[in-house]
């Protein structure tokens, strides 16, 4: 059974960090563009060499054309996510007045938040996806999702932001209108908070939350739109992982989150599978050479056995079509290798 690439439009490439998601996403996008689809790949902070391979000269949010060697007709655009500046644009979009925008962008707390808020990458990625999903210009969109500590971050980033500026939190910090839930408790809480956090911080926070007022409905709407897009039948969720104990446990957790959100897993990719191990060695080797080569073959064989064990565990726990990608000792940072990888991705589905 081959991977049904034609009926899907959006490919979400997810999985634990460090399994090669970005490379897989790039390879899949190249393959789709070779097939004649106008393709867009959204990628998160790729390593410099991969960015260069894709033709990124500067690291910005702008769309850049990637030329696919040997396929002059292929239409492939790539965009890299820059969460910091992206946030400013989001504020610009939802702000109700230029004054509100200015106040927020200049707020110390906001700057700290953008620099440090966990989930800002996730938010930027989802924002960008929503923006492009409505463009008819692209037949296929491949999204390299940010590595998340917890898969939930990916889906809930807009929701969390909305929560942060939720009306009730706002009201809680706004001294003017009085408190709307347990009066005495709130005053006590304010005092306690002042003691703990210091009044300077609380003033800043109150100002910040006040500035954000009215923007939360926009964020909530985005959250719903993201979920809807994820559940769309033309969206394909692809889990990239590795056949090892740690990766297996992480992937099972990841899958649980997908299930609880009602998102179907379409495809599993097990990356960096060990290959080549055999026992028919060259006859007549010197003792030392034979010792060396049998030791190396045994080592590879042991690695293979471990991978086999976890591959079987995957089969039982996540029974979806699976592609195995051999561990490539070549550096996956040039377009030719990405082309090859793209072919093996889409041809060897089992």
């Amino acid at each position: 059974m081959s991977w049904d690439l034609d009926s899907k439009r959006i490919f979400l490439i997810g999985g634990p960090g460090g399994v090669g998601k970005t490379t897989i996403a790039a390879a899949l996008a190249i393959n789709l563009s070779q097939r004649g689809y106008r393709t867009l790949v959204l990628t998160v902070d790729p390593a410099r060499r991969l960015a260069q391979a894709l033709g990124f000269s500067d690291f910005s949010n702008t769309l850049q054309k990637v030329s696919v060697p040997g396929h002059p007709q292929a239409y492939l655009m790539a965009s890299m996510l820059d969460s910091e500046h992206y946030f400013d644009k989001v504020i610009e979009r939802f702000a109700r007045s230029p004054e509100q925008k200015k106040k927020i962008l200049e707020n110390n707390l906001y700057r700290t938040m953008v620099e440090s808020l966990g989930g800002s990458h996730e938010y930027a990625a989802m924002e960008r996806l929503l923006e492009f999903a409505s463009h008819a210009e692209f037949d296929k969109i491949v999204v390299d999702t940010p590595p998340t500590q917890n898969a939930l971050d990916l889906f809930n980033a807009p929701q969390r932001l909305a929560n942060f500026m939720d009306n009730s939190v706002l009201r809680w910090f706004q001294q003017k209108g009085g408190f709307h839930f347990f009066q005495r408790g709130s005053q006590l809480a304010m005092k306690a908070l002042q003691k703990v956090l210091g009044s300077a911080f609380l003033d800043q926070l109150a100002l910040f939350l006040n500035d954000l007022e009215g923007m939360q409905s926009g964020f909530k709407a985005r959250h719903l739109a993201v979920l809807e897009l994820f559940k769309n039948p033309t969206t394909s969720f692809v889990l990239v992982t590795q056949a090892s104990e740690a990766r297996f446990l992480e992937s099972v957790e990841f899958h649980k989150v997908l299930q609880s959100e009602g998102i179907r897993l379409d495809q599993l990719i097990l990356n960096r599978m060990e290959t080549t191990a055999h026992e028919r060695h060259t006859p007549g080797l010197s003792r030392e050479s034979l010792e060396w080569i049998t030791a190396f073959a045994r080592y590879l064989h042991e690695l293979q056995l471990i991978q086999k064990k976890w591959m079987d565990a995957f089969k039982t726990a996540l029974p979806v079509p699976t592609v195995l990608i051999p561990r490539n000792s070549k550096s996956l940072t040039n377009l030719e290798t990405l082309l090859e990888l793209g072919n093996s991705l889409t041809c060897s589905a089992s």
Partner: protein
Amino acid sequence: MTPSHRSGTIWLVKPRYLHTLLEKKVVFFTGKGGVGKSALTSATAVLCQRQGKKVFLVSWNPFDTHARSFPYSSLGIEHLVLDGPSCFKEYVLGILKFEKIYDLIFENNVFQTFIAASPGLAETVIAGKIWDLMDKNPQALILVDLPASGHAFTFFSSPLGLRKLFRMGLVHREIERICEMFLSSSTLLNFVTLPEELPLSETLEFKNKLAKLGKINMGFFLLNQCLPQLPGREPVEPLNNDDQLLLQQYRSYLDQELRAEELLQSAELPQIKLPRLSCPEWITTVEALSRELERQ
């Protein structure tokens, strides 16, 4: 001892891993996901504990099934899994003294949401808890298994950034202490990475980004999953196809490792190479890695 030229820096005596660590109070481990960070933190804990050191191992991934199943306590290692909301509670309780007041004020959805979503608050209270642990156990070694790079950056940048926001109050004092801990000479930051170009260059970029935050004391580059030492000698005679393929594979992995070491030259930190182990279970991997680290 002969001088060894490493990482562009001349180490008259290359710092010994165990020796260096035993002199510290807090050691952070950082690296991209999947590079064996948890295994190396645990292996270091096992190693230092064997030397008679009181060891605390701190992690905060609630999904870290290994950390939960590893028999730390039977080895005499105290394992703590920290999370933002409970650290916050502990911290505030230390000030308010009365749990009832805390529950009344903070145990509601609004405030819980506030803690979860507040920029850097969770990271800061966790760092505060580590400071506390250090303060109460001056003889102990605290090993911290940081979350993957992005979140680890938040961990260091939040207190150093929040410093600007809190100019008074108890939090101000707390943050000052945390920053002091981060910049102290008895604190060390180790980087765990693989001998592959992509994770390695990312780790290097991360290191440079961190260096801009302040003078954090950086320790070792742990290059995990390198080729093992093989007995005998690499064959020089003509080989059959299968063996030829094996040799090619070995050489391409070796090339990768050499490129990695070359890239690491710019890091100016001592490197430690650890072999990729073919242990089927995590527990045996940790034990074997602790023996490897002991030799360094």
